[in-house]
């Protein structure tokens, strides 16, 4: 079976610090893999290595069956990957619409970008209403919507979502998770990084728990023991 993302014995180092130590990770086609773990467990480093902005020290990263271990970020994005990063990282000094235009101009097809932008602003009505506002003036939840919409501008087949619920009000968290399930139903494969293990396991087909940069547990959510999940929340570096 072809996988959306297949990582084998990935190592990521920052100078002397070994943030990720030989992990294996897989996202099935049109499935959701939850990547769990405490702060500093190596989740974000893994995600950044997949996008190519942080170099892979050793191991391999295959995206839709192609080896993309040493590829540049633009090639990885063109291969169908998009990211909604930790902390959202929307461009605060650009308007909502400019954030989307920029994402579309980089990776999307120019002829479909405008239509896609319109349909995304219908899907996320708050972004349509605020499209001329500076993105920095949006609330946290609205910024998260913008981060997701911006990722969708490149029409990705594999979406990396890093802590999409962090710092959001409970209704917003529900809204974000509803979108995640919607996207999966549309056939997008998702790697979901979450500190909120309970929520992530509700939607995930497969889960990997990291601790100190290593895989502490992996398997279907139903097969993870309470102890595994406890590790994901509390076993920090």
């Amino acid at each position, binding site marked *: 079976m072809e996988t959306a993302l297949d990582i084998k014995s990935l190592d990521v180092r920052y100078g002397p610090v070994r943030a990720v130590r030989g992990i294996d990770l897989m996202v099935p086609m049109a499935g959701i893999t939850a990547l769990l773990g405490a702060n500093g467990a190596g989740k974000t480093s893994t995600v950044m290595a997949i*996008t190519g*902005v942080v170099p892979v020290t050793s191991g391999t990263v295959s995206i839709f069956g192609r080896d993309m271990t040493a590829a*540049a*970020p*633009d090639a990885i*994005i*063109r291969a169908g990957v998009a*990211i909604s*990063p930790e902390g959202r*990282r929307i*461009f*605060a*000094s*650009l308007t909502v619409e*400019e954030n989307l*235009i*920029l*994402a579309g*101009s*980089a*990776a999307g097809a120019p002829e479909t970008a405008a239509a896609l932008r319109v349909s995304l602003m219908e899907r996320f009505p708050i972004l349509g209403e605020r499209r001329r506002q*500076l993105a*920095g*003036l949006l609330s946290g939840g609205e910024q998260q919507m913008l981060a997701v919409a*911006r990722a969708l501008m*490149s029409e990705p087949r594999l979406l990396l979502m890093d802590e999409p619920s962090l710092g959001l009000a409970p209704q917003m968290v529900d809204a974000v998770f509803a979108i995640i399930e919607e996207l999966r139903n549309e056939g997008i494969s998702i790697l979901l990084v979450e500190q909120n293990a309970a929520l992530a396991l509700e939607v995930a087909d497969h889960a990997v728990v990291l601790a100190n940069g290593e895989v502490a547990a992996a398997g279907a959510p139903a097969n993870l023991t309470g102890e595994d999940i406890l590790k994901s929340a509390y076993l920090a570096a």
Partner: protein
Amino acid sequence: MDLLLQQIINALSLGGIYAMLALGLAIVFSIVRLINFAHGEIMTFGGYGIFLAMAFGFPPLAALTVGIGAALMMALAMERAAFRAMRGADVVSLLITSFAVSEILKVLFQNGISARPVPISFPASWSGTYQLAGMNIGVAPTVSILVTLTSLSLLTLVLRRTSIGMAMRAAAEDFEMLRMLGVRANRVVAVSFAVSGLLAGVAAVIWTAQRGSVDPVMGFFPVLKAFIATVLGGLGSLSGAVAGGFVVGLLEVLTQAFLPDGVSPYRDAIVLGAVIAILLVRPDGLLPAGDGSRS
């Protein structure tokens, strides 16, 4: 009144040069975290471009275009040859690289062209004056203000309206995120150097047109002032760099015009003292980067 108006025109003219140089420094710094000490040599090279074009018999306006083109090419060549290899290095390594580039170019100018100033003779009408409401106003400062304002407006338009402009504003905010959207880093960096080279070229044109000569260290002092302007405006802030440039220009012209003779040797100290005083009140600069301020 007459004197005041003339000094205001001088201040805007000088401030405009500093503003364009400071903006070029700020655009590159905001994207690649490089404080480019070789920026002065980009300007100097533009000056030599004018000199050589005139020596080959180009008409003055064509020679000025050649000068701007020369500065643009120098900026791009610098990025390709020296700074691309150092991409992602820490600020100190980048700074030392730019010192090396600066020194190499200075020696090449000295040995390849001349260590002494080479004259450029523009038409006499350029250094004339005209009458406005009974006052004599210099042609060169007036043209230089117009050129500066045109350049800055065009650049603002590009930054606000075009997709590469959006990418540059976004890169100034979060370059890594921009790369994660699939934007090619090399393209944005090259364009930022091209813009800084273009602005340095325009500055070189105005500078040489007013002084009538080019020498190997021509770019050093104006770029030094432009550095001060970028710090004053808020390092990495594009609008801050422009504001800082005009403030430094204004302080310089005012101190030159109105300080008593006994104090005038301390002019630079007084200008820098004023800059320090402003920074004590606003440590992040006049218009700091990262507060959502638009370029």
